[in-house]
Structures are given as C-alpha cells and as structure tokens.
C-alpha cells in the first residue's frame, strides 16, 4: 500500500497541478517526470560516432550510414500514434526523444490543434507493449519504454479509466522489475 502511494505521488505533478497556467500542460502525467528519462544524448549521430575512433572517418556520409550496415535497427524507432477524435494517424520516432517530457512536448506539438479543441479535458498517453497489453506511459524507465512500445494512443483521461488500463497493478510490476 505504501508503495502504491509512493508511485502515485511520483506520477502526479509535484505541485499537484498546472503551475504554468498560460500554457495548459496536457500530458501532466508524464511531462514533469524526468527521473525515468535521463538519456545523456539522444543524438543518433553521436551514438554512431562512439563506435568509430574518429569523428567523421572514414568519410561515409551519414545518409549511407543510417541506411545500410547493421545500424538500421539502432537508428529509428517509429511507432504509430493515434489520438481519440483526431482523424489522422501519425508516427513518431522514439529514438529521437530524450525522455518522457520530450515525448510529451512532441505529442503536444503534433496534436496541438486537436488537443486544444477538445473542451479542456485531460489526455493520457497509453501505449501497447510487446505483449499486446495497453499500459500507461510514464511508468517504466524511458529506455525500457522505447524498447517495448509498439504503438501510442492519446486517450481522454475519462475514457482511460474505463479502458481498463490497470495502472496500479502495472506500476507495481514495473517497480518490482526495477528492483
């Protein structure tokens, strides 16, 4: 029980709300929580450079590096993103983001119009993992999240509760995995 409380507090905003009132933070659940999201550099270029001794040598252009060899699996992690009420499906490259708050910013930018139109209700991002289960985004460390996320869905908070995303249970599982 104590654990659940702990994690519930962690998931919510420390200040408990929208401090920045001018700009409505839609993804309050994940956008403030950076603990899970520390990746020192998200720059794919840098990832590839660390393999070779010297930057930019041999002079194989970055386009060729990304599109051949065995790096293709490291370079892009596109997942589909759907949003309730929006008529279009989008895609996002998870490898390009540093953490949850970065992802939240990208989602806000992507669905900006639709989010603002939808009468002030809050949205939660949920994702389908490798096992086909729908989970709430933000529970697991970022690295683990991008490995297992198959697709994202931006859902109205009200609907999410009914959707059966069993947050507490999943959270407990996640925290026990972390240990």
């Amino acid at each position, binding site marked *: 029980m104590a654990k659940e409380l702990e994690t519930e507090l962690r998931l919510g905003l420390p200040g408990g709300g929208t401090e920045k009132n001018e700009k409505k933070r839609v993804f309050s659940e994940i956008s403030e929580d950076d603990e899970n999201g520390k990746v020192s550099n998200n*720059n794919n*270029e840098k990832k590839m*450079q660390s*393999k*070779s001794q*010297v*930057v*930019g*040598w*041999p*002079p*194989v*252009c*970055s*386009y*060729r*590096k990304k*599109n*051949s*060899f065995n790096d*293709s699996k490291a370079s*892009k992690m*596109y997942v589909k993103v759907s949003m309730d009420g929006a008529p*279009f*499906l*989008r*895609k*996002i*490259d998870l490898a390009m983001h540093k953490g949850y708050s970065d992802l939240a910013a990208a989602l806000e930018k*992507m669905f900006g119009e639709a989010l603002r139109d939808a009468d002030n209700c809050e949205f939660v991002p949920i994702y389908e993992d490798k096992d086909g289960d729908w989970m709430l985004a933000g529970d697991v460390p970022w690295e683990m999240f991008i490995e297992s996320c198959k697709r994202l869905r931006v859902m109205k908070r009200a609907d999410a509760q009914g959707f059966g995303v069993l947050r507490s249970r999943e959270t407990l599982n996640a925290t026990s995995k972390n240990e």
Partner: protein
Amino acid sequence: MAYSFPDEVLEHVFSFIQTDKDRNTVSMVCKSWYEIERWCRRKIFVGNCYAVSPRMVIRRFPEVRSIELKGKPHFADFNLVPDGWGGYVLPWIAAMAGAYPWLEEIRLKRMVVTDESLELIAKSFKNFKVLVLSSCEGFSTDGLAAIAAGCKFLWWLFSDFGWLLPGKCGLLYALYVDSFLLIMLYRVNDDHVLQTFVYLGLEGIIFQAGAEDSDVFFFLTLIWNLRELDLRESEVDDLSGHWISHFPETYTSLVSLNISCLGSDEVSFSALERLVGRCPNLTTLRLNRAVPLDKIANILRRAPQLVEFGTGTYAAELRPDVFSNLAGAFSSCKELKSLSGFWDAVPAYLPAIYPVCSKLTSLNLSYATIQSPDLIKLVSHCPNLQRLLVLDYIEDSGLEALASSCKDLRELRVFPSDPFGAEPNASLTEQGLVAVSLGCPKLQSVLYFCHQMTNAALITIAQNRPNLTRFRLCIIVPRTPDYLTLEPLDVGFGAIVEHCKNLKRLSLSGLLTDRVFEYIGTYAKRLEMLSVAFAGDSDLGLHHVLSGCESLRKLEIRDCPFGDKALLANAAKLETMRSLWMSSCSVSYGACKLLGQKMPRLNVEVIDERGPPDSRPESCPVEKLYIYRSVAGPRFDMPPFVWMMDDEESALRLS
C-alpha cells in the same frame, strides 16, 4: 560610328548560351550586354548560399525561372559541421515568393528546409515544376503533403503598378467560384494604359488570353504542374505515409519521383500505385526501403515507360510465382536504363532483372549485401554499363570481371561494407582498381574505399587512365603507408596529378608528407576540389596547394598540421575560391582574427564548441574554420558556437 544589334537580336543570341560561366563572361563585355543579359537570364546557380543575398540576386536578375542553392560545407556529410550551423532556405523562398512568381525549379543541396518553406513554395509559384532536395533536412512529410497538394487558391494580387511597360501583361487576380475560376488579366497598351480582361473558366483548363490585337498573349496554366520531386538522401521526419494521397486525382504531370530516402516507413501504397498509374510521363521512380519486393511487379506494369527505377527492399522468400511475375514485369519495361535500391537483396531474385540488363547504363547496388559470385554474374549481363555503385563485397575478382565485361564504364564507386571494422571485410585490394583502370578505357570518375594501396598501383592507374577527372581514394585506416615498401604514398598520388591533366576533383588518404602537396601544386592545374585528411608535415604543404593550384575552388582539410603561415601568406588566394574548410588543424584564433580584419570580402567563421575563442589565448588553435568569399557580408543567423571574424569596417558599423 557605333551601331549594334537591337536588343531582341542579342537576347536571342544569348538564349543559346546556357552555362553560368559563359553567361557571366557575356555580361562583362559592356554595359548594354550586361543589361540585356541580366534580363534574360533564367537560371541561377549559387554555390554558397551565404556568398550573396537573395535581395542582390533578385535585383540583378529579375526574371529567373530556375535556381540552385547549396548550403552547408561538404564535410557536413560526415558530421563535422555541428547541428544548427546554418544553411536556411526560408529567407530565399520568402524573397523569391514575391519577386519570382513564375519560378519553376528549385534545387537545393545541404540546406535546412522547413515545412514552412515547403508550404510557401507550394503557395507562391504557380507554374512550379521541379523540386530537388539533396542531402537536406528540417522538413517532414507534412511539408511534402503541401507540395503534393499544390496551390488550390490562386489569390494573387499584383501590386506593383509603378512600371507600366507597353506589352507587359499578367494576372491580376484569380478566384474560385464553386468549381469555376474567375480571373482578371491586365495588359498595358501602347499608351501606357492598363487594360483589364475578365474570364470565367473551368478549373484545370489551360487558358489562353487574348484581346483585340493578336500580339497580346497570356498563357495561364491552372493545373498543379509539378514534374519532378526528388528527395535524394535528405533526412525527412516521417510522420505519416499519407502525404502522397495529397496529389489531386486530376494531377497527371509527374515525370520524376525519388522518395528513396523515406526510411523504413510505408508510404501509402495504394495512393502511390494510383499516382503511378495516372502519370503517363513518369520516367523516374525511386521507391523507399519499405516497399516490399512483391509489390514491384504491380508498379512496373503500371509504368512500363520507366527509364530509371529504384526498388525497395529486394528480399523475400523465394517463390516461383512471385519470381516469374517480377521477371515478367521487368521485361515489360523496354526503356529501363538505370536501376537502384536493392536493399538487403536476396541473390535468388537478381535474375529477375536479367531481361533489362543489356540496356542498363547505371546500376546502384551499394545497399545490396550480395557477394562477389552473384555480383560477377550480374555485371556480366550488363555490357553497356556506364556507372556502377557497389559495396566492397565485389572484391578484386568481381572488379576483374567488371573490367572485362563493361568496356563502356565511366564511373565506379566502391563503398565499404564495414567501415568501422579494423580488418578488411572482403578481399578487395588495390588490384581491383588497377584491373578496372586497365580494362575500362572510358573510366573517368572513381570513388574507392579500401584497406591497402601501393605507389606502384597508383602509378599504373595514372598511366592507364590519364582521362580521369575525379579520383577519390579512401584508405580506411588513416596514415597507412604503401604496404609493400612502407613508404608514403606521395609518389603515387603525384603520378595521378601528373598524368591526369584534366583532374577536377581529388581526395587523398594514406601516409602523405608535404611532398604530395608539392606535386599537386606543380601539376594539378585544373584541380577544382581537393579533400585532405591526416596528411602533411608543415605549412609548406598547404602553401604548395594554395600557391600552385590555379583552378582551385574548394579546399577541405581535416587533422593536418597546417597553421597560420601558409594561410596568411596566401590570403588573397582565398578570394578566388568558393570556400576553405579546416578542422582539427593548427590555425590560431589570432590568425583568424587577422584574416577577418584584413579581408573584407571573406567571411571567416570560427566554429568552436568549447566556448568563446577569446576566453582562450590567441595562439590557441581553433576547432574548425570555414572561410568563404561573400559579397553579402557577415551573416546574422549564426548559432552560439560560430563566431564571425569581422573586418574593421563592419565592426565599426555594428558598434
């Protein structure tokens, strides 16, 4: 008594003069030729977008229809130019939107293109035909959707009435009224009076506007007229595959589409098929990796007129029905001359292209991980091959086969399959290149990655192929000597520049002393671009190049012990070149400042991610240096890690 041809005659004569160099020469003959020429120049090439400002270009050339711009320095391809350095195209597009409403072609290389720029292009240029984005970045499939959709509303208010020339005519405004188009045209008559004509027409119909006199002619095309969309090696933020559905159903003018860079994500396939099916003039189609092998046949059958085709992933389980369908589809393409793509190619499916091999002039297998025996079989079917791009899996044996089968070969590029591995991944040595140089008399252009080289091999190549114009050799481990004699490769490269009198482009590698630069300065009189890495001993090397290479336009250097002396001694030379790049060399901050101060027509950029250069001693070498001539003066879109070494005048101006 001076008499000359009427302007129209000169203009007509000038229309046969196409190259920039010749046009520039024509414009310098006399003032009136300059004037005539600038009004009839239709094509502009700007090799460095910061060398001149959009306003200056527009002022001089008011009637441009085609523009080509290049942004970042070449070494940006190898991640040596930090993100955010510059090369933004938006200011150009914004300026041209107002000045060149009839612009037809935009070609960009290494520039930052945003969705906003693409939207502006789609909105501003009514007769837009060609968009080529080569190694560009900064845009997403949303921007592409705007290009595909084109301009829907032709709201164009002509506001500049200041200059009414008889005969001048144009579109005043146009607007959709239901599915009808209402347009108002204007014309200036001989009395300098503006006349207007109103027409009502159907969307998508070509109008011809006439008035009483037959010599007023106004041709207006309302259909989105895009012919070419080529995204060559650009980095696109792939948000949605549906951008391709934005091409209107009535749109049929596509001639060339290259989306091979669109990564591993699907483009809406049914929309692509429909698009291909309704464009009878489509001659170039390069698909992206996500298009599976079993879809190729359908596409080819819809476009048997294709001349250039790029497959997607060329891998699938071998199934006889799929194979025969594919082979049949290829053989229905009687005009195919160029093939590319072949990601992860499975050898079993290669024979499907045999029906077209005898006509192939260009083959890009540089993403195909197929081994030498299969490559040998393939090239032996292509006697008319002029251009081959391939991985080092081809090995010496494959290159020997190439040398005996492909006597028309002009260009060869061999890429490393494992560039970061310490040991060679394939049995490819200097012998392969020697074989090709011996067997292919028309060979002009070489790009070759390998692990070992000898002076003897280079001398042989030079003697066999004095007609080489581009020679780029990359020996993978820096500073590798001649593996037989353990000597530097100075003499080998020296032979290349001595024998190949028309050499325009050279890239060096291996162990090299100042001597190679002495050879280059002495012999490479037609050399325009030189790339140097991990070479030389002292400033003398750089001095030889700067003082000797008369035609040098672009020089890029990394990790060489070149410092201030040669640079400052040859400062004037830098104004005759497009640009100089030096990174990880020994040029001090003090020298950069001096150069910036004394050479007002050069922009001297210090790129240093360690922080402000004046927080360190003046003698401290800068990380990266980029010098280019410019008539536009310093730029103001620099990121925090770039410092412009101002000349005295502009420093005073700004203070």
